[in-house]
Structure formats: structure tokens, C-alpha cells
């Protein structure tokens, strides 16, 4: 094994397990191009029938929030429990909501 794959761009792989479900992030891999990313994802992540659909996204194209901003981004939501719709009375007849 050589290290040539280290020069290949990294792709994040998302797999949809069944029709109707959403794509879930399963991991990442190296590939030279988009088509190879799909093929590698098929070989790496669906060989035991884990999925029916694959998304591949260049890792460098993902914009992520900065962990250092966590206080500013997420802390303000903590004391706003009224945003959870727990104050409604649900009629008995309503089975699924």
C-alpha cells in the first residue's frame, strides 16, 4: 500500500438505507473524482446491502460551525423552553401528532 490516496480529495459519504428514509452520514473516503467517490462508497459502505442511494460531497465544500462559537450559537436557546410545544392539550382522539 502506498500513500498516493493521501493526495486525492476527501469526500463525505451519505447513504440512504431504504426508500423514504433520509441520507445519513456514514464516513469519508479518498477519490480522484465524483464518479470514483460513488464507486468507492458503493464498495466500502454498501457491500452488505446497507443502502439504496449514495450522496458524495467534497469535504472541502462543507461549511461547518466553529466549536468556539458554540456559546453564541446554541446557548441562547437553552432557557427558551416555551419553544417546545409542550403546553398544548392534545385531544384524546388525535392518535398521531
Amino acid at each position, binding site marked *: *500500500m*502506498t500513500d*498516493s*490516496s493521501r493526495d*486525492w480529495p476527501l469526500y463525505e459519504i451519505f447513504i440512504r438505507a431504504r426508500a423514504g428514509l433520509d441520507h445519513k452520514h456514514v464516513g469519508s*473516503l*479518498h*477519490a*480522484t*473524482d465524483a*464518479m*470514483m467517490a460513488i*464507486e*468507492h462508497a*458503493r*464498495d*466500502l459502505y454498501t*457491500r452488505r446491502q446497507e443502502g439504496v442511494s449514495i450522496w458524495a460531497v467534497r469535504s472541502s465544500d462543507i461549511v461547518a460551525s466553529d466549536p468556539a462559537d458554540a456559546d453564541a450559537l446554541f446557548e441562547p436557546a437553552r432557557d427558551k423552553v416555551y419553544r417546545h410545544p409542550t403546553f398544548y392539550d392534545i385531544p384524546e382522539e388525535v392518535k398521531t401528532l
Partner: protein
Amino acid sequence: MTPHCRYVLRLADTSLILAQRLGEWIGHAPAIEEDLGLANVSLDLLGQARMLLSYAAELEGRGRSEDDLAYLREESEFLNATLVEQPNGDFGQTIVRQFLIDAWQLELYEWLQESKDPRLAEIAAKAVKETRYHLRYSAGWLVRLGDGTEVSHARVQDALERLWPFTGELFAADAVDHEVAQAGIGPAPESLLPGWSARIGAVLSGSRLAVPPTTPFGWHGKRGQHSEHLGHVLAEMQSLHRAHPGAIW
């Protein structure tokens, strides 16, 4: 051995020896992703070989199993196409060999899905889906390498010229082929040539690769006359079973 049985054995051995060759890459491929890619193709081919060998053993009717056929036959009893026993060479040469055989197997299995032999039709219906993926994989790499750098282009062009002479055998009919074609069990080999040429021609021109001229060929692996390479493949593949008969894990 009937022509029918010999024909099935030819298909089985071609998949088996190619599976063994691809297995040699495990742990040596250019990237771990390719390690898995090549191993997956190898396992598909091994699965095809197992179904075909079991069927050949039944047709033979001498009480031999798929393992007996895989591990206890001598070199001259193997009937694979000479192309698949050729050494892996570099990654480019492996891809060229794979591409040439994938395109042929796809034509073959598409035909065999309609075979009058229901067992072969059933095996082909499963194999054709696998083979479509194999061709997508090998054609993808051929374009990347052929249309890649100066070095990669030169290497795959060189591999193409080296392996091209072995493709003649795939389309040359002998007595066994005539018999199975007449019975509607298998295609006339030459009838697969136009479809194969069209498939590979499209990819080769997109890879800036030149189709080598057709040359006479002197190999008849499907009749048991092999190049010098098959003996080494068999020595490795069969040594464990011969040293420890019936070993399992």
C-alpha cells in the same frame, strides 16, 4: 466430457483464474479504497465461478465437487481464456486486462440470459448485473489513466498492446463452441465481436488510446494449452488444499 460440460467449465475457469489474479492485489493496491474495489470484483467473479463449477460438476456426473474441480485439476485441464491468466503487471495493466474481459463477459452474459440452458440463463442473469458494474469500474479507470498524465497514458497504451493479442481467442470458435451454439446453449463466439468492439472502441477513443492492429494468436487456453503463467497461479491457488486436503475454516 460432453461439449456442454466443457463449455461451462471454460466460463467457470475464466472467472476463477481472473478472481485469483485480482486477489493478488489485496494489500498492494495504490489506495485502500482500490484494495476493496478490486477485492469486490474478485469476489463477484469467484461467486460466478462457484456456481459454474458446481454446474459443470453436475454435468460431468462423476461425483466431483466444485472444490475438486478448482483445487485438484492439472494445468492442462483448466479451460480459461489465456487473457485472464496474464500477470497483473502494474495497476494500469490490470485495468486493461479487466476492461477487455469485462466488455466480453457483458456481451456473453447478456446473450446467455436467453440461453436454452435454464441453469446458465439463471447464472447469467445474476452475473450480468455484477459485470455491468465491473465494466463501469474498469472503463472509468481506463479513461483516467489513458487521458491522464504522459506516464499513465504510455503505460496503459503499452499494456493494451501487450494484452491485445490474447483477445483473438475470445472470438475464435472451435468444435465445442459450434456444438453449444447449434444447441442454443451458448453464442457463436464471433457473434459477440461487433458488440464488444463497439463497447471498447467508445471508451478507448475517449481515453486517447489507439486500438492495436489484430494479430494472429497462438494461445488456446480454452483447450488447455496455456501460457507459461497459469502454472504459477495454480501453484499458489491449489497449494493449501493439496497440502491439507479438505481443510476448511
